[in-house]
Each structure stands twice: as structure tokens, then as C-alpha cells.
């Protein structure tokens, strides 16, 4: 596969390490009343869709950026690639 890196252009997916569903960005609040349940869902349950899937790839043999890649799990077509830090910030992650 080829991942179109937002800054570096097309790169072979072999340069990347795959982590999984980009929902892993949405780490629950550790102080929430149902934190245990939220972390269970966060840690273990996945939509695992057949179709568009937002997922995390790490450019380990490259610029060490984490990317959020939107990819179709049936066709492998890559629909969108974003810098994960931008996605994380947009989803309200901070300090």
C-alpha cells in the first residue's frame, strides 16, 4: 500500500507501523465515575467496520509522525490522511 503523507508525499506503507482504530485518540477521563467501564470500552471494543475506517499509522521509518488514515477495509482505498496531532487537537486533546 501507499500512504500519501500530508507533508512528505506518497510513501510505502512498509515504512509505517499500524496501531488500530483512531478511537484510541479518545482516551477517557480517568476521573469519570464510570472510568472503569469507559476504559474497558476504549481498550477492548471496536466497531471494526467493513468500509471506511479511521486508523492510526506511525511513520516509524520516516518522520515519526502519527497519522490518521481513513481507509476502506474492503478495497484498501485511502480516502484521507491527516496528521494525528491535528486530529487529536480537533477532538479536544490537550495536556
Amino acid at each position: 500500500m501507499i500512504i500519501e503523507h500530508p507533508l512528505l508525499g506518497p510513501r510505502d506503507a512498509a515504512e509505517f507501523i499500524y496501531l488500530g482504530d483512531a478511537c484510541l485518540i479518545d482516551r477517557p477521563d480517568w476521573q469519570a465515575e464510570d472510568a472503569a467501564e469507559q476504559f474497558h470500552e476504549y481498550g477492548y471494543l471496536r466497531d471494526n467496520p467493513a468500509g471506511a475506517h479511521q486508523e492510526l499509522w506511525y511513520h516509524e521509518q520516516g518522520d515519526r509522525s502519527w497519522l490518521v488514515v481513513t481507509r476502506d477495509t474492503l478495497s484498501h482505498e485511502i480516502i484521507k490522511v491527516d496528521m494525528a496531532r491535528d486530529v487529536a487537537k480537533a477532538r479536544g486533546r490537550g495536556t
Partner: protein
Amino acid sequence: MTQAEHIGQAFKFFEDDERGTQRISVFGQDNRVGAGLINRGERLTFSFNGKEMTGFQGDTLASALLANGQLLVGRSFKYHRPRGILTAGSEEPNALVELRSGAAKEPNTRATVTELFDGLEAKSQNHRGSLNFDLMAMTDFASPFLTAGFYYKTFMWPKSFWEKVYEPIIRKAAGLGSLSMEHDPDSYDKGFLHCDLLVIGAGPSGLMAALSAARAGARVILADEDFLLGGRLNSEVLEVGGMAGSTWAAKTVAELASMDNVRMMARTTVYGAYDHGIYGALERCTDHLASSAGKPRQILWRVYSKRAVLAAGSTERPIAFGNNDRPGIMMAGAVRTYLNRFGVVPGKSIAVFTNNDDGWQTAADLHDAGMDVAAVIDSRDTDAPMALPGVRHMRGQAIVNTIGRKGVKAVQTTGGITLPVDAVAVSGGWNPNVHLTCHQRGRPEWREDINAFVPGGVLPVGMAVAGAANGSMTLAASLAEGQAVADAQITDLGFNPVAADVPQASDEAINGAAFWHVAESKNRAWLDQQNDVTVKDVKQSYQEGFRSVEHLKRYTTLGMATDQGKTANIPALAIMSELTGKPIQETGTTIFRPPYTPVPIGAFGGRSRGKDFRPYRLTPSHKWAEENGASFVNVGNWMRAEWYTQPGEKGWRDSVDREALSTRTAVGICDVTTLGKIDIKGKDAGAFLDKVYSNTFSTLKVGRVRYGLMLREDGICYDDGTTARLADNHYVMTTTTANAVLVYRRLEFARQCLWPGLDVHLISTTDGWAQFAVAGPKSRRLLRKVVDKEFDLSNEAFPFMACGEVTVFGGTPARLFRISFSGELAFEIAVPARFGNSMIEGLMKAGKALGVVPYGTEALGVMRIEKGHCTANELTGQTTAHNIGLGKMVSQKKECIGNVLSQREELIREDDVKLVGLRPVDRSKGLLAGSHFITKGEEANMANDQGWMTSVAWSPNLGHSVGLGFVKSGNRRMGEVIRAVSPVHKTEMDVEIVSAHFIDPEGKRLRG
């Protein structure tokens, strides 16, 4: 040789040639006729089954064998039927040989694509006894009992006979060629290519596509599996642009080869279409040479294309009739290839059996060459599509059976006529080579007008298909489509195609009728000639309910041989379609998967074999260690010294005991560079570390080190190590050797994805610093002679867990940490890696009077076990902080990775296993790592399993074996004697549960 020279050479020998037509016997090459595109100036000698024969440069092994009248070349898989050469290409099911000899022996090599070279050795395969008298041929007589799926129905009794009797017999009979059992003597290489347009296939449409794209300025790669580019143009007598097709091909190839933006790749098979325009291609560099002379035999290319044109042509399919597998029965198109390209005919009197007009062309070419065409047997009851004076036309007839054994002697027709012939040319129509269109999501579609599957469904991204591969079966259509498709492809990329006329060519007659097998045949009619699948097998498969094409394939093994059913599959599924009454489109095909033709495993392996399988990482003191008796051990890709053998030491234990003892009594030095080092900077570095470690680091004082425990998000221990604070905004983290890369990755995830608002920056410095543990009661005294004198190393100024930046040996920068893995007074000192090898010399020199020893990973292991420290044997990724007695280190008062899920009920059970020390009750016995613990008096079974021994060592300091292990509620069972069983060693012993801290449990030494 440049690409242009290479191609040029391939062609120079035929441009001057004239096409001869009369039979010319050359040194035993009785079947050699005409001229062909071979170089008669270069005679080559080769051997088949030890018999010497000759051929010419430009021959394949198959054409040379045919020239020499060798029609019998192998035996089939199951029935050991005599088989000859069916095709002239990579689709060949029958003519497989063992090529070369010794370690270079290459089984199952298709003679039809093997380029002849001087000294070539080939042997036929899959027979016991000689090729002519194969003892295994008796299986053919048992064939009524060996039909599809027979082995699923028997060989079950008695039960023990399967592995002992039946299976060995079956295995020995099965298989085709044999491996040499020696290491492959050749090397392989890989490479990466990039282009705007990849053109797959250099026949008429491929050449036109490449030419048009190249003229427009696109970066073009043209690849073809053949050594002579031109595809069918080299097999036919058709004209292009007023010249012989092969001449036009050569001229076009020459033009392409002269262009800088074109890469011509002959002998290169594009074997697979992968995601996003990536293609796999195999270039055979030295297979046509007697020796590879130290160069890579083959190169596996990964081609990154923006667009691709598949111009892979088509493959002729047979018609199934009784005994249609005899040597001498060939595809009609192959007969033309042998005649026109190689100047060879398979026999003296040839019958043509066809269901379409193209078969007639074979008769015409043979006729024009002065050969005896016994008859054209056409299944269609129609007029001859061309006039062939003197050739008998048997309309509406078919071959029902053939006579002969090791070669065809006569054919019998449905009309009851027996024709004596010594060869048969069969044409059942042509299948577009759609394979690569299906490697992803494409599913072929049936086209009634040409009775063939054409590309359908979703093609690989960027791929378009042209020519015969697309169902455009005539030459004129192929040329035009090649250009049009390429123009469309490059227009997409922003190039402007150069308007050029497509060269003149004729549309040859291609009418045909669907006709798959001769129903009147009573004898077995072969579909898959290699795996011996007949029409009857298909019928039986249907009868027993195996009706989907996948069941048909799996039940009968149809299409699973080395040719992947390139000639067999379509006729077979057409027959299944007749049986089920479902149309062919609905019956469908099995899925084509890479590779298009088989690829040597060695090529996929590339250079990564032997010592080059993975890179070596060497520690900075590697050279010194080599010079000082070290033996090395792999730790991941690192090579670490495991011990240093001194003169007089008889075994590794002598060395390790000495190193461990000397370190505990004096001082030892160990290269610990392999531990991961991550430089962490930024004003939020402390806050960041609080989140990634289970314990707190923001409160760590500058100049101090702290042990850190890192959890995974699921609450299990991930890694541990020490992290030093060198400045307010600057920490240095150490990780275990194995996890250095993984921890870095996780930290980047935390930094970019979880807490992007923190100002923190990471950079690995693992390789940058040569780091040495200096351990033992005399370690301070040693360092005092190394660290420049302005730095105070006293216990007060530089206590346990202190760190600082110092200089050594008169000004060289260094980092000093007072940390201890051995439990002794100990330091780690780091200098820039370039000084590493010199540094250990300096340390040894400084410590000479103190009795310093270098120690390796074994002594390191002994001492850490004596001290009860964990390594990967304990931190297996299944271990909780509670298991190792560090439950309290997991803060619940701050946000950190893993703390929430670490509190799940099953992970904090009181009766879970706990890390303990173990020693044998009989102190003379040696503990065994991996033993399981069973409470005394209980039976050894899984329900009673109390835990296991993780690490053991002989303690030279205690004089007995010591171990660490996990025992259920072990912290409450101190002093208990428990069984340590190791059934795999057939032993057990009693062991006592003790504290894991065998040495200095109060930690006085390391604080001293």
C-alpha cells in the same frame, strides 16, 4: 550490458535472416525446418536425461527438444502418463524438467520458457525407473479406483496405518521434481522502480502502448516474461505496417530502447498486482546463462506505477477428447510458435482440430511451410474460412480418441475415420489473460461473442487493459487499443499524447464456437494434464455434490498444479456449467491470486538470508571484547558479550562464576549500551513522564535518577528502567534493550495523539552513548581514576540514584549515573559512542590494580537473579505490578497510562502469583527454569499448578542454585517447600520459597 544493447543483441541475429520453409536436418535436429528467429550461427549443446543434443541460440529448451525429436519429456502427477510439450509458453502443464544439477538443481522448470544455453542439463521428473519405462505407470491401470476424492473415502483402517503406511506411500508417489537438499548457491536481489506507466506485456498492444506513452514523455516501464520482446508477433506470419510483424516489433523495441524515459525489461514477469498501483515483478538475470558468476540470479522488483496497461495477451485452451494427453498433441498456436519463431515442427504429419478460425491459421502456416497437414477437423459444420488446397477439411467432426502410448500415432474421429498422424494441433479458442485484473477485486465477465472471460468488476487502481487480454483478439484491434488505452492513461496524468497513426495490420478471422469436450469420447479426456483431472472427474464431482467451482477445484485438484490451470480451468468449468445448467457467467471462475507464474522463494527472500537475514548491531566496545576473549550472544539484533574466557577456563561456567564473584568482591565492567536511551526535552517533560510512567517523575530533583515502571493501557507491566533528570527541561529515559523501539513509539503516541498540548520532544540517543556499568565495592575507587578530579564522587556528594554530567580522562564529556542492577555499589558511565572502545580500555587500565574484570550478560544475569531483579523472563507482557510486588508503584492519584485498567478484579487478586526466590532443598541440585510448582502431596496437573520458575542461575556467591519464580500467593508462603516439576526433563525436586533478594536484602551495598 545496457538495456538497449541487451535487446539489440536479442534481435540482431534474426533481422538478417530469411524465412526458410524447407525442412533442414541439422545434426540430429530432425524436426528443424525453416529459419525462425533463432541464431543458427550459434550452436548450443545441451543434455536431456544425459543424452547430448544441440540447439541454437534463441531456442527454448522445449523448441530444442522438439527439434531433436524428443516428444516425450515427462510423466504426469497421479497416473504417471507419458507427456510431451503442450504449449510454447508459461502456461505449460506437462513439459517440466529438473534443470541444472547439484545444488543448483531447479525442479519443475518449464522447458517452454527455459532459454537454451550451452551446457544446459535437464532431466525429466516424476518417474521411477527411466522416463520411457516408469514403474509408477501402473497407477494408470488402477485409475478406475483413483478417481476424484478417492483418498477421502479410504485409508482409514486400521487407524495407525495412515501415518505409517498409507501416507508415506502417497507422499512418495506425489510431488513432481525434487530439491537438491543443499543450500541454494545463488544470490538474489531486490529493487524498487517508479514510473508513470507500467506496460505489462510487449506484444502488439503493449508495444503500441509503451511507444505512445514514451513519445509523450511519460516515464514508461515495459516488461515481458519472454526474452524476445514482441509477443505473438514473433509467432505469427502477420504483417504490421507493411513488414513482418516480428520485424516491426524489433524496430519498435529498438526505438523504445533508445529513449531515456523508457525502461525495457525483457525476461521480467509482472507476477502480482498489489494495492495502490504497486506491482511485483521478477527479472531473471542469469537463468539464461550457464553460471551466474557471482551476480544475483534474479531481481524481485517492486514497481510503483501511477498507471498501468495490462497487455498480457491470451492463452489458447484445449478441447478435451479421449486420450488427448499423448506426446505430440499440442496447442495449435504453440505449433505456429515452434514453426515460425523456432523453425521446428512436432511431427511429419499433423492433424489440426479446432472449433474456431484461428486453428486454420496453423494449418495454413504448416501448409505454407510445406508440411503434411493430414486434415483440419473442425467441430463446426461450416465452410472452411480459408482455402487450403490439398488439405482435407472434416467439417462438423471431432477427435474422439487417439492411438499411441509414448506418442500419438493416429486419431479417430467422431465420423469413424482413423487418421495416421504423429502430431495434433488443437485449438479450443483463446482465453484473455485476465489474471492480474483479478488480483484485487476484479471478477471476469463472460463474453458470448468470443466465448471467453474478459476483465470485469473493479480493476486494480490505475490499471487498464488492452489487446487480447481485453478480448480484442485481432492484431489490428490490439495495436489500436494499445495506443488508445495508453493515451487515455497518460492523459489522466497530464501528458499530451502525440497523435500518431496506428500501423496498418489486418483483422484476422477469429470466429469460433463454444465446444469444450467431445461428448462421444469413451476414453478418459484430460482437462488438467498435470494433475490428471479428466472430464469424468468433473462429472463425479458434480454427482457427489461438489458443484461450486471452488469445491470442484478442491475435490478434484483441478487447476492446482504448477500451471495453475491456465489451460484447464475454463474448459472444466464450462463442463460444470453444462452439468448444472447454469450459465458460465454464473458458474464463475476460481479466484486468480498472485503470482501469475511461480516465483522462486529465494527471490522473495532477496539478500535476507544467512548472516544477512537481519542487520547486526554492535556495541561500542565490540572490538575490544573480541580481542579479549568474549563470546557473543544475540539480543534482538544486538551482539552482546556473554562472557569473557580467560586462559585456563574450561567452560563458560568458569568464566561466568569468576566474573560474578570478582564483581561482587572487587569491580566489574559491563557494556550496557544496548539499553534504550531516549532524550526527553521540553518544559512539560516532567508532566509527560507522569502520564507515561505509573509513578511520578515531575517531582524528581535535577541530578537524580528514579526507577520507573511503565504499564500498557491494559494495566499490565510493559517496561521498566531508570530515568534521570539532567535539567529542569531535560530527562534521559532508559528502556530495556528489547523494548527500546517500542517504548519510543508509545511515547510518540502519547505525545502526538493523547497529549498534544504538552511541550515535550523525544529523540533516541541509544547509539550515541557508549554506556558501561561499573559495579562492585571498588567501583567508586575505579571511577575516581577516570572521572576528572573536579567532580566529587563521594557518597555524600553523589549518593545512590544521583546523576550528573562530568568529564573523564581530562575533559571528555560523560554522563554518570549511580544506579545498580547487580545490587552492589555501582555506577553507569556514558561517553560519546566514538570513544566507547577506548573507554573500556581506559576503565580496564584504571581498574587493573583493583582487580577489575569485564563481565558479560551471563554474569549480569546471575547477579540480577541473586538480587531479585526482573527482566524479560519475568516481565513477559502478562505480568502485573502486583505480581512483582510493585502494586503500590501504580499511582491512582494522577492520570497515567494503565492505572485504571490495572485495577480490574482479576488483576488484583490476592491469590494471584507473586514473584519469589527459590532454592533447592538439596543445595547440590540445579534448578530448572520453566519448572512448574505443585504443592507437596498434590498431583501434578494443570488444576494444581501453583506457578513456574522464571529464571535460574548458579550463584557462585552463595554456592548453590538460585531461582526466581511466580507462585500463587507466594508472598505468604515464605519457607514453604514445594515441588518444582519439569516433566519435559522427566525430573522434579523440592524447592524452598524464599525472598527474591538473595544478596544484601537491605540494600546496604548499593547505598554504601
